[in-house]
């Protein structure tokens, strides 16, 4: 089928790759090993650590994760690309996810999405605003359907967003 709305091609590193898993980050990952019977089970947590540190998961990072966990880079890439929350390219300073699945769609979520695209200057889903401040995507069901429309700005879960509320909501995110 056609590309998912908001999908963008894989990004590339623009500077020599600096490993994530050194010092405290490596210790934190090694502490996780005790929580699972296999190292492989630490893959999703390790990828979250990469994204928290770098903002996205590059191919170099996938290779590093593979090395640390004793997996192949191809396997890691297969996993990374399965899940929608790992960014395969750099995104804006603030990442906005708008739920437009049916229950919210019935309550005006598409208007909220359009208001966010306009207020951020992103114009198109998946694109980063010219000032590098925002990237906006549609997300499937955020599991807060009684609070239509919910949005996520980075890790902030915001309920009952209306198109009118959008400009004020974005103010705190520079």
């Amino acid at each position, binding site marked *: *089928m056609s590309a*998912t709305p908001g999908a963008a091609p894989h990004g590339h590193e623009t500077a020599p790759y600096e490993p994530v898993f050194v010092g405290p980050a490596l210790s934190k990952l090694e502490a996780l090993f005790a*929580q*699972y*019977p*296999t190292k*492989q*089970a*630490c*893959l*999703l*947590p390790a*990828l*979250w650590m990469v994204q928290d540190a770098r903002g996205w998961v590059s191919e170099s990072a996938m290779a590093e994760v593979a090395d640390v*966990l004793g*997996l192949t880079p191809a396997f890691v890439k*297969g*996993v990374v690309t*399965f*899940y*929608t*929350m*790992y960014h395969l390219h750099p995104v804006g300073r603030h990442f906005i*996810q708008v739920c*437009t*699945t*049916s*229950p919210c*769609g*019935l*309550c005006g979520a598409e208007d909220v999405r359009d208001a966010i695209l306009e207020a951020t200057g992103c114009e198109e889903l998946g694109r980063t605003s010219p000032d590098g401040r925002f990237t906006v995507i549609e*997300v*499937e*069901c*955020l*599991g*807060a*359907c*009684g*609070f*239509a429309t919910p949005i*996520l700005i980075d*890790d*902030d*879960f915001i309920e009952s967003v209306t198109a009118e509320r959008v400009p004020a909501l974005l103010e705190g995110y520079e």
Partner: protein
Amino acid sequence: MGYPHPIHPKETPVLSTHFGDAAARSYAGWVERGGYQALRKALAMTPNDVTEEVKASGLRGRGGAGFPCGLKWSFMPKNSGKPHYLVCNADESEPGTFKDREIMRWTPHALIEGCAIAAYAIGAERCYVYIRGEFTEPLRIMTTAIEEAYANGVLGTNVMGSGATIDMIIHRGAGAYICGEETALMNSIEGKRGNPRIKPPFPAQAGVFGMPTTVNNVETLAAVPHIVTRGAAWYKGLCLGSDKSTGTKLFSVCGQIQRPGNYEVTMGTPMRDLVVDMAGGARPGRTLKAVIPGGSSVPIMTVAEMEDCVCDYEGVMAKGSMLGSGGMIVMDDSADMVYQIWRLARFYAHESCAQCTQCRQGTAWTTKILERILRGQGEQKDLQLLMDLSENMTGKTICVLSDSCAAPIVSGIQKFPEEFEAYISKRRQPALSPA
């Protein structure tokens, strides 16, 4: 209670009693409200007696399938010599469903207590709580609550002085609806793509890491402490309809309704009470048209079907749909059924793991055909084509994602044919611009 609304007289709050009460979130607050007495009581019983109590209560899985909980626990091998695992499914992603989120946000210790009791009953020393990646707030609250539970000796190597070991680990998902399917979820914990597995083997034989595993939904586990404290007979007595559906259930009522929220009612409560009395019915100037009663994966019901439907597993099935997760999506006369069904099909196409042909192709093609109809380019034969595709998407794949896509399509065409005809005959303006 119908959080965020006050308790409605027709509700029976058990799990939702403390929704909205932020003081119930802490360990101290939970203990003040009677928390962890059930775990203490369970630890003094044999694991088998705990399982038998839950079996006798009639509690059924609240994630959607409705499988008897105690029976599932009894499938776990005895003295297997292998590590056993409990997995708490907190991957709530079924469109229309937002109850597990509220349980974790307001009463995290209720879930921890339920998990600890279940782990004890099935002989598991470790419990993984799989929380969907988008649930940032429940994740934060659960993380804090688990730390508190360890600090107060209700988790760890000597749970409440009983000598039992129960560890609890949060595993954060990363965006995949399919990981709510229990075998996909186990693969995701193992660090793999979330592809569902062929069953058998069932999780009790070979689950996560190949070991005996029980997977239970958040709401199911949160009900367990109440059953242990108040007894199976009390729980079983909460029943207004079929005696196969007992206890209370949280119904997430949402969509085009006056008071969306989570309403907790006794099994067997009339659906009309939920939709009209509790959730307030249609918005001013509107009339209700349809309800999808069990999360988006079940057949759509007309308002006439809703009027005399009883909310329990058997009652909704008698109307040709399913109770599912209890996520009720309500649509009024302003809803375009073709558009809504297309939007659901698009959801399933996006979420298909793509390992089964019928699902990978079926979800994509039904979406495209519905899109064509919405662009004003549909033909009469497209409806039969959608029905044929749907038939081939039902009962033919490893998991039921494909069936879930077919359910609203088939029921939508059968129950609202005039809306499809209106687009095909060009009596209705296209909802989408031409490709």
